[in-house]
């Protein structure tokens, strides 16, 4: 049921775009107004969300330690997994963000049987990594549409990405990664009972949405060619705040754009915000220096406890009898 709703929502977006692309007035809406609005929602929403998290303090220093602490000088500490310095924390975070280290941890047990990738947990790491890198490169590559002339580094990425030289125009590696990674994540979510059990519409929807974005992108490139010059004019116009709407771009483009806009606008309100949240996670971004340096809690209040004096008053006679020293005889 959750799956059908999510899939239905994505299909509805496609239909809306398809209809809209037929009328010039609606083209203006789809090609200019909605992209501006979606981008604004994304930017403001994202920043607001991160600021909202940052507004909550970190009252306690609670890193999850995943290795030996720093203690006696002759015991080797785990600098990455249990960092006690800022550089250690940065390295730990970098591994977490660029290599999904915690997800990779799953593989450890399985190395013994001689296979690198085996079992669902490894598929998760692989799928996630492929997908995220595919998505990143694809997004960066799209910058070539926003600027004119195209900077050399974007062209470089474009060239490396297309170096497989399969077909004309060549297939991008990043497209394969993106679609392949998404497919793994989706199949996994549908096929593994325990993951399916925990899945919500909010988990299926972004998968279908991004998949639809990828597929429409590929369709545009290989089957329903759109007027690339027109597209560039439109996008550069948007980027330079002098929007123009050239004729005859092709419906597939508008579908692609509306899907992307949906993703942008949906992003700040969804689990996709893990992109920002991972940087702020207190179990990962704090050094394990608890006993070396005092961590301050901004809402600290002195504790109401049972002071020794009262304790002695209550037990003085018993203490004296047992030969335990007391403050007041």
């Amino acid at each position, binding site marked *: 049921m959750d799956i059908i709703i999510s899939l239905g929502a994505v299909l509805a977006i496609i239909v809306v775009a398809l209809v809209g692309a037929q009328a010039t007035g609606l083209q203006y809406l789809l090609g200019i107004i909605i992209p501006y609005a979606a981008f604004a929602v994304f930017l403001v929403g994202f920043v607001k969300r991160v600021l909202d998290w940052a507004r909550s303090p970190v009252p306690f220093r609670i890193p999850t330690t995943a290795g030996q602490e720093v203690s006696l000088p002759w015991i080797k500490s785990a600098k990455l997994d249990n960092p006690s310095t800022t550089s250690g924390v940065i390295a730990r975070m970098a591994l977490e963000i660029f290599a999904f280290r915690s997800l990779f941890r799953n593989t450890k*047990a*399985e190395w013994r049987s001689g296979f690198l990738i085996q*079992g*669902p947990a490894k598929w998760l790491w692989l799928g996630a990594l492929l997908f995220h890198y595919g998505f990143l490169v694809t997004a960066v590559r799209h910058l070539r549409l926003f600027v004119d002339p195209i900077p050399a580094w974007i062209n470089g990425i474009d060239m490396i990405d297309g170096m497989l030289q399969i077909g004309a125009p060549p297939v991008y590696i990043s497209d394969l990664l993106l679609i392949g990674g998404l497919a793994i994540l989706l199949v996994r979510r549908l096929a*593994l*009972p*325990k993951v*399916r*059990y925990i899945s919500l519409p909010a988990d299926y929807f972004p998968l279908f949405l991004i998949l639809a974005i990828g597929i429409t992108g590929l369709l545009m490139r290989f089957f329903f060619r759109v007027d690339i010059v027109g597209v560039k004019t439109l996008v550069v116009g948007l980027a330079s705040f002098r929007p123009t709407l050239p004729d005859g771009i092709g419906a597939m483009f508008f579908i692609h754009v509306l899907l992307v806009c949906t993703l942008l606008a949906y992003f700040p309100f969804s689990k996709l915000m893990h992109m920002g949240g991972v940087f702020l996670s207190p179990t990962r971004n704090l050094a394990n220096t608890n006993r070396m340096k005092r961590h301050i809690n901004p809402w600290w209040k002195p504790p109401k406890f049972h002071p020794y004096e009262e304790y002695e008053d209550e037990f003085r006679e018993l203490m004296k009898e047992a030969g335990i020293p007391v403050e007041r005889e």
Partner: protein
Amino acid sequence: MKLSSLLEQHREHIKDEWIRRIANTYPLKTARFLREKHDEFANPVGSTLEKAITSLFSEIINECDPDRIAGLLDDIIRIRAVQDFSPSAAVAIVFMIKDIVRDRLAGEIKKGDLTEELFTFESTVDRIALLAFDVYMKCREKVWEIKMNDVMQRPFMLMEGAMCTSYMLRRGNMHLEKIGNDDEFTDIRRSNN
């Protein structure tokens, strides 16, 4: 062909089906997990199930040694005895093999006129089920014994000035012979009574 050789021939299928049916007594999502992941330490229930049933089936069609069978049943039932199963559901796993054998071998049993042998086989399964009942009760009694020991050690149960009961009982006995009427210990034993 005899039933025993039929069972030998279909060993893999019957064993897998048995494991599958046992796993299916868990909630759906868990059942799949129990069947799919076989790292001994990452999935102790699933791997125990796999190992014990494989050996149990061999044992049934070969030696049928009651001690070994009880040991293998113990591996599985010890787990089920502390999970969300009624006593009947905990031991019913044994009977499943009857259905599996009938489902799988119905045609061949009829054809080879092996009904007699089937009865013998099923009687064996019934006896194994009785063993399973013993094992289940042993496990449950153990749980209660641990519970009781735990309660006996509870600080709230004790009088002021006493120590852990099991320790005191043991110490008391040790000292009884050695120091006879040592005041301190007899006092404590009295206050505990």
